[in-house]
C-alpha cells in the first residue's frame, strides 16, 4: 500500500501535448508511473510520447481505464478541467496550476460536494510514491522509498524536508502537496487520515505555513485518532502580518494564523514540532526512535 497512488495507478495527463505537461509526463514515465494516455481537446486520435491522445477525459477513461488525472492546464482553465475529470469518474485529480481564481474553487467544490473524486491542489507540486508513481513536478531523484509520509502545502519546502530525510536514510511512503491556495481540494486532516490507515507509513510529517487553521485542526484530529507520531513544521515565523507571502493562502489575518501560534498549539497537543526548518530530518529520526 501507499496513499492515493501506486505502481498500478493508471494516470491520464490533461493538457498532455503542452510543453510543461510533456516534460513532466516524460519524467513521470521514466520514474515508472503508469501513464496510459492524455487529453488535449482537438488533438484526439493522435499519439504523443507513444501514447494515445483523446479529445475528452470521458473518452480517455473509457478507453484506458485511467483512475488518476494529472491536470497540467493553465490556471484559467483548471477548474473546468477538474470538473471534466470528475464527471468522467476520475478518482484522484491533481491540479498543478498556481493562480486559480479562488471563487472558481469555491463554486467547483460546491458542485463536487458529495462526490468521490479526491482533488489535490491547486497550486500543488503533486503526489509521489517513491519507486512507483509520480503525478506532479517534483524532482524525482531526491525521493527514496521508505516509511515516512509527508504532506505539505509548498513544493520546494517539501523537497527541502525530503532531502533532509533521504540524507539520513529515511525514505518516504508517499509525499502529498496539498497546495498553497486558501481554498484547496484536500486538506491536511484528510491526508493524515490516509496516512494513519496506510500500513506502509510509520511516521507522518506535516509541513504547513502561515494563514488559516488547517494545520491546527489536522493536529487536533491526530491527537485524538492517530497512533503514528506526527512531526510538524510551520513556515513563516518571520513573516509580517497582512502580506501574502507568495502563496495565495499564506497571509496572516489574525493572531491565531501566525506560525508561532500554530506551532505552540500543535506542540501543546503533544506532537513533535520543529522550529528550525533545517531540523526536520533530525526530528523525524527522533520520532521514529520513539516508536521503536
Amino acid at each position, binding site marked *: 500500500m501507499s496513499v492515493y497512488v501506486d505502481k498500478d495507478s493508471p494516470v491520464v495527463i490533461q493538457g498532455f501535448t503542452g510543453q510543461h505537461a510533456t516534460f513532466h509526463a516524460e519524467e513521470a514515465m521514466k520514474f515508472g508511473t503508469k501513464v496510459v494516455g492524455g487529453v488535449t481537446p482537438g488533438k484526439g486520435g493522435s499519439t504523443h510520447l507513444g501514447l494515445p491522445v483523446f479529445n475528452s477525459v470521458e473518452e480517455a477513461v473509457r478507453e484506458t481505464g485511467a483512475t488518476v488525472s494529472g491536470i497540467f492546464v493553465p490556471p*484559467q482553465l483548471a477548474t473546468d478541467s477538474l470538473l471534466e475529470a470528475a464527471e468522467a469518474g476520475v478518482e484522484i485529480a491533481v491540479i498543478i496550476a498556481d493562480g486559480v481564481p*479562488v*471563487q472558481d474553487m469555491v463554486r467547483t467544490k*460546491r458542485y463536487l460536494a458529495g462526490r468521490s473524486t479526491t482533488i489535490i491542489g491547486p497550486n500543488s507540486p503533486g503526489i509521489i510514491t517513491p519507486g512507483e508513481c509520480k503525478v506532479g513536478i517534483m524532482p524525482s531523484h531526491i525521493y527514496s522509498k521508505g516509511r515516512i509520509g509527508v504532506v505539505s502545502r509548498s513544493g520546494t519546502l517539501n523537497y527541502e524536508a525530503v532531502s533532509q530525510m533521504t540524507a539520513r536514510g529515511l525514505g518516504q511512503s508517499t509525499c502529498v502537496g496539498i497546495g498553497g491556495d486558501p481554498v484547496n481540494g484536500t486538506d491536511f486532516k484528510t491526508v493524515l487520515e490516509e496516512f494513519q490507515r496506510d500500513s506502509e507509513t510509520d511516521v507522518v510529517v506535516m509541513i504547513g505555513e502561515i*494563514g488559516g487553521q488547517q494545520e491546527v485542526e489536522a493536529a487536533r484530529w491526530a491527537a485524538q485518532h492517530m497512533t503514528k507520531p506526527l512531526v510538524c513544521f510551520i513556515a513563516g515565523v*518571520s513573516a509580517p502580518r497582512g502580506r501574502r507571502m507568495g502563496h495565495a493562502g499564506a497571509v496572516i489575518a489574525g493572531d491565531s494564523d501566525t506560525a508561532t501560534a500554530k506551532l505552540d498549539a500543535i506542540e501543546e497537543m503533544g506532537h513533535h514540532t520543529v522550529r528550525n526548518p533545517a531540523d526536520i530530518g533530525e526530528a523525524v529520526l527522533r520520532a521514529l526512535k520513539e516508536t521503536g
Partner: protein
Amino acid sequence: MNIHEYQAKELLRAYGVPVPPGEVVYSNRAAARVAEELGGSRWVVKAQIHAGGRGKAGGVKLANTPQKVAELADQMIGRRLATAQTDQEGQLVQRVLVERASKIEREFYLSLIVDRVSQRIVVIASAEGGVDVEEVAASNPDAMHKEYVDPGVGLLDFQCRKIATAIGLASRAASFTRLMKRIYRLFRDKDCLLLEINPFIVSEDGDLLALDGKMSFDDNALFRQGEIVELRDFDEEDPKEVEAFGHGLNYIALDGSVGCIVNGAGLAMATMDAIVLHGGRPANFLDVGGGASAEKVANAFRIVLKDPNVKAILVNIFAGINRCDWIAQGVVQATRDQRIEVPIVVRLAGTNVEEGRKILDESGLDLIQAEDLDDAAVKAVASLDGAVAGGVLQ
C-alpha cells in the same frame, strides 16, 4: 489588489448601492468647487490612501464651509498620512474625496469575505459599526452575525432578512435585502476577496447608505477583470515590488539586512525563518519561481540591492523544475555585471547541483558556498560582520 475608497464607492453606486454624493479631487480649488456643487451645509473631506485607520490619524475631517473644505484638502494633499496600518513615514495623499456629510442615525458593520474554513463567501454583519471591528469580534464574537452563502444558489432572501433582524433592521428588511443582494452580486462578479462597508448607516432621513467602502480583489482573477485592473494605483505599492512583479518575481520588502533570493514561496519563508533563528533579519521575501533563467536571477539581484539596508545576500535554491547550473550562471553574471560588493552566500540543491557548484567554483568570484539551509543561514548572518571569507567562518 486593493483600490481606493472613492473607487469602491463608484463600483457600489454602479451596482445600485447608495453612497453619499461626492467627488474625488486633486486640488484645494477643486475641493471647494465640488463642495459648492454638492450643496448642503456640511461636508466631509477624506484622504484617499489604501491603508485603514485614516479617521484616527486625521485623514477624515468635517467642514462647514467650502473654504474650510479647501483648507482641509490643502492640508491633506501632498502630505504623508501615517496611520496604524502604514509605516511611520506614512503614505503620500494625492487626492481627497469630498462628500456631503450624512446625518447618521445608526451605524452598522458589514463585510463579505471568502472564508477559507467554510470555503464559502460569508457575510458578516454587526449592529456595532463605525468602530474598530476587530475589537468587537474579539471581545464579543456573538455581536458578529454570519451568513454563509451556498455558491450553488447565491445569497438568499431569507438570509438577508436574518442579517437585517440581527442588526436591528427588521422593519426595513425588504429594502435591506435588495441592497444586500446587490452587494453580494458585486462581490461575486468582480472576484473580490474582501468587501467591507464600515459604517453602513441609516441616515436621519431614513436612507440606507454605504458611508465607507473597502475592496480587495483576487490577483488570480485579474485576467478576467480588466475594469478592475484599470483601478490599480501603483503609487500605493512599494516600487521594488511593482518592478519585481513586472519581471515575474514575487518580492515583498521587509526591514532587515539579509537580502533573500529563493525559489518557491514555502522555502522562501523557511529561509527567512532560518535567518531569524540565527540572529539575523531578512530584508525581503523573494520567490524567483520555477524555470528561473539567468536573466531572472540578475533581475532578482538588482531588485534586492535597491534596498540600501541590504548588507548580505542569501541565495537558496532547491531546484526541481529549475536547474542549478542556470541559477549559478545567473549568480555569476549578476555579481560581475552589477559589481556587487556585499557578501553573497549561495546554497544550491536538487537538479544539476554538481554543475551549478562547479560554475560557482570556477568563476573566481568571492562567493560563499553553503552546504545546506542551516549552513547558509549561519554564514549569511556571520557575513554581516565580515566573519566569513571564502566560504569559511573566521
